């Protein structure tokens, strides 16, 4: 069913499958490896998937990154605050601002249903960086 689509099924790039944009900046790739490591060490119980998108091509170093957090949480704000605490060190080390958008299951179903902006961004150039279901 379309409503069951997980972020990793639509992102063209995927950490677990070693699928990266051809021209990705090597420094960015290193940052993402470290971030994945850190997320797996923390194993945040409120996150099922985390995907990233940059409006700039991946070969450039961005000033900010869109970070979409998926999970079974009900409060978007609590999910944002907890994610911010987890990402603070990543931000300090790398210098690009994570703009975090927690998506509830309902938000995600809505995005899929109407091919919303987030859905299209992830489908175009999104990278699945963390998932509890992609231990491939």
């Amino acid at each position, binding site marked *: 069913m379309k409503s069951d689509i997980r972020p990793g099924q639509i992102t063209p790039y995927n950490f677990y499958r070693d699928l990266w944009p051809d021209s990705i900046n090597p420094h960015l790739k290193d940052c993402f490896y470290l971030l994945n490591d850190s997320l797996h060490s923390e194993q945040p119980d409120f996150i099922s998937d985390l995907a990233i998108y940059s409006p700039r091509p991946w070969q450039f170093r961005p*000033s*900010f990154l869109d970070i979409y957090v998926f999970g079974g949480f009900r*409060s*978007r*704000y609590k999910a*944002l*605050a907890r*994610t*911010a*605490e987890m*990402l*603070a*060190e990543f*931000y*300090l080390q790398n*210098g*690009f*601002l*994570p*703009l*975090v*958008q927690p998506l509830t299951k*309902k938000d995600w179903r*809505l995005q899929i249903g*109407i091919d*919303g*902006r987030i859905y299209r961004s992830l489908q175009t150039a999104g990278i699945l960086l963390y998932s509890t279901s992609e231990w491939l």
Partner: protein
Amino acid sequence: MKLPEAYLAVAERSLKAAKVLLDESIQESATFYSYHAFESMGGALCESQGVRYHPRGHPQKINLFTTVARKLGIGKGVATVAIIVASMRNGCLYPNLSSGGSFETPETRTSKSAARDILKRVKGIYKIVKKML
């Protein structure tokens, strides 16, 4: 008034505005003013360190604030609040997509408790920045 003090004054008034708006249950605008207060504190801290803050885009200003805060040993707290307020900013200003192809206004997406928590966090950073000037 020197530029760092002027930025701090803007931050202080923005915090007051945020409090008034929160008391009036205009939580989305309260959150936006918390953001503005935070960004202005960045101006105060950066300019006090001889780092030019303006003109730059919003993310660039926040990045600069975080970089300077890190050098001064307050990076972690500033970075955490930076991620929160910057992530909330646009959602406090513009309509968001809702179900059935309709749109929701920012006040339905920003809760009062979230706005209160953000204001508290930003005030905490304000106190630290003020002491450092």
